[in-house]
């Protein structure tokens, strides 16, 4: 088996404030192979965005990637590169797009200039060549009249077009990996589908891998090959997309699934997972999800669950994996409340 394109192992990103340490990402591991789409799913505060920023080493003090962490990309250890070497990777080999296309574009530069700038930062291309590549890239993202659009400012474009511009900026140098942090969250539903399709089309054309950060399982179902579910700064479940949707193992994943609005079920109200993610400065002992879990028993308070293998390429950080009987005999699982499954 060849090395994966990106291999994150035991990533720990802590924020230090005097004596207080916020363990935002606390021992996360996963791989991304060439050309595949891996989704990182979790709610706010689960550490998924910090994970994305850590891969590009964009964590700023007081945040710090702890020493035992490792992020290997194309055979190189990113955490050991100099700042200058790291800059040659950003935007060039690994690119990132952000949630808010509104604020992620510079209001005083034309969109063409902003795309061309990425080319000029990383290559020796002349001003003219860089501009041509920007126009080409805009055309590739499906913007009509790309040459005219290139000379416009972000405020003259709609939200969907701005997101296309962001994508053009990120992909103009054909990176091997695209990190997309909630790329569709700020968009209208109709535009969301278009942007996802665009991303998939460009992914095939350019042969890049995508690391998709999202809280939206609907998006995951549409594009992901494999899924990493994060909770409390940890990976709680890891599986292929089909496996995850057919047989979710971790109670948190189950909760996320049942919280998804669905048309094929007769539910009067949407299901929610009670409570919120605990603060990263004080993760609970044992299992970090236990306060919100309907299965939780005494073992969950004392023993921190490891990632148990629960199937082919499928792991779950829940003691139910070794005590499966508790699943049926214990309390009402979240999914039952809406009717079908289980």
């Amino acid at each position, binding site marked *: 088996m060849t090395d994966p394109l990106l291999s994150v192992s035991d990533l720990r990103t802590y924020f230090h404030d005097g004596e207080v340490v916020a363990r935002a990402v606390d021992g996360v591991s996963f791989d991304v192979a060439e050309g595949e789409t891996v989704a990182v799913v979790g709610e706010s505060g689960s550490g998924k965005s910090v994970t994305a920023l850590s891969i590009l080493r964009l964590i700023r003090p007081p945040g710090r990637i702890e020493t035992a962490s490792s992020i290997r990309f194309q055979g190189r250890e990113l955490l050991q590169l100099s700042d200058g070497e790291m800059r040659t990777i*950003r935007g060039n080999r690994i690119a990132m797009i952000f949630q808010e296309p509104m604020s992620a574009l510079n209001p005083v*530069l034309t969109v063409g200039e902003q795309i061309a*700038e990425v080319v000029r930062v990383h290559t020796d291309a002349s001003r003219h060549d860089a501009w041509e590549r920007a126009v080409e890239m805009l055309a590739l993202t499906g913007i009509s009249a790309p040459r005219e659009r290139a000379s416009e400012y972000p405020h003259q474009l709609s939200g969907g077009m701005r997101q296309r511009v*962001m994508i053009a900026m*990120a992909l103009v140098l054909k990176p091997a990996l695209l990190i997309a942090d909630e790329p569709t969250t700020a968009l209208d539903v109709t535009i969301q589908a278009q942007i996802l399709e665009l991303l998939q089309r460009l992914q095939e054309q350019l042969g890049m891998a995508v690391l998709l950060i999202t809280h939206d399982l609907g998006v995951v179902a549409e594009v992901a090959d494999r899924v990493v579910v994060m909770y409390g700064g940890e990976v709680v479940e890891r599986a292929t997309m089909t496996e995850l949707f057919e047989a979710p193992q971790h109670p948190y994943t189950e909760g996320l699934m049942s919280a998804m609005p669905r048309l094929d079920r007769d539910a009067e109200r949407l299901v929610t997972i009670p409570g919120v993610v605990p603060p990263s400065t004080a993760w609970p002992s044992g299992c970090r999800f236990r306060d919100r879990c309907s299965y939780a028993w005494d073992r969950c308070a004392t023993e921190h669950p490891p990632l148990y293998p629960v199937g082919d390429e499928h792991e779950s950080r829940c003691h139910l994996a070794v005590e499966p009987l508790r699943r049926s005999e214990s309390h009402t699982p979240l999914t039952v409340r809406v009717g079908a499954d289980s």
Partner: protein
Amino acid sequence: MVRHAGIASGVIAVIVVVALLAPWVAPYDPIAQPDIIGLKNLAPSFSHPFGTDSFSRDVLSRCIYGARISLSVAALATAIAITLGTLYGAIAGYVGGAVDAVLMRIVDAALSIPRVLLLIAILALWNGLPLWLLIVVLGATGWFGLSRMVRAQVLSMRELDFVAAARALGASGPRILFRHILPNVLPTIIVAATLGVGHVIILEAGLSYLGLGVQPPSASWGSIIQDGADQIGAAWWISLFPGLLIVTTAIACNALGDALRAAFDPRENAVTMAELDS
């Protein structure tokens, strides 16, 4: 507000154009003393609208040529101040941390000394001060306030999404600062420059009046006032007209600066640099 800005920029434009065209519009040679007895201290008349001074020189012509000195000293000194203040504030705001703390404490200390006192102390070191040095000294003492404003803006912009995006796409620190952040601070800088010019005109007039500014035979508005100061009772016109010009120009600059500030202020009006551009 817009009307004020129109009048103010009109006034400034007229004064600038007249100053530029001085050799063609000035009726007399500003330093010629044609008849030191016969034409001395003439009251304003058709042939000498601003009168003549005690050396029989035409005050209007002196004011027109004086505008060149007063305006260029103000413009150049402000350019120096803006450059220094912007760079200093941008570095403090972008680098942050201990560097920021040290740089800003230096500015605090500099701001605690009254500027005029500082200028008098510095300028008194020279006897017969060259004009360029006056400009440099005025510029070098005029950037403290601006540096604080720029620093505050850079500090807040450093965390914005488009800066994070630029960083994520591989831009280096200086590139982010100069290409992404500073153009967004431009409104502040333009307002500060406009207000600064008005301020420096008054400051330079004050210094020239004290004999510390522009040295004879060149004359700025301030030194023309000083020429007439000892005979203000007998020949009031020598000091009055350059004085009015100073007041008019300074008010016009301030009015324009205020109008620009209002136009750039998102709370009053949603005009951004991008919109002005398009």
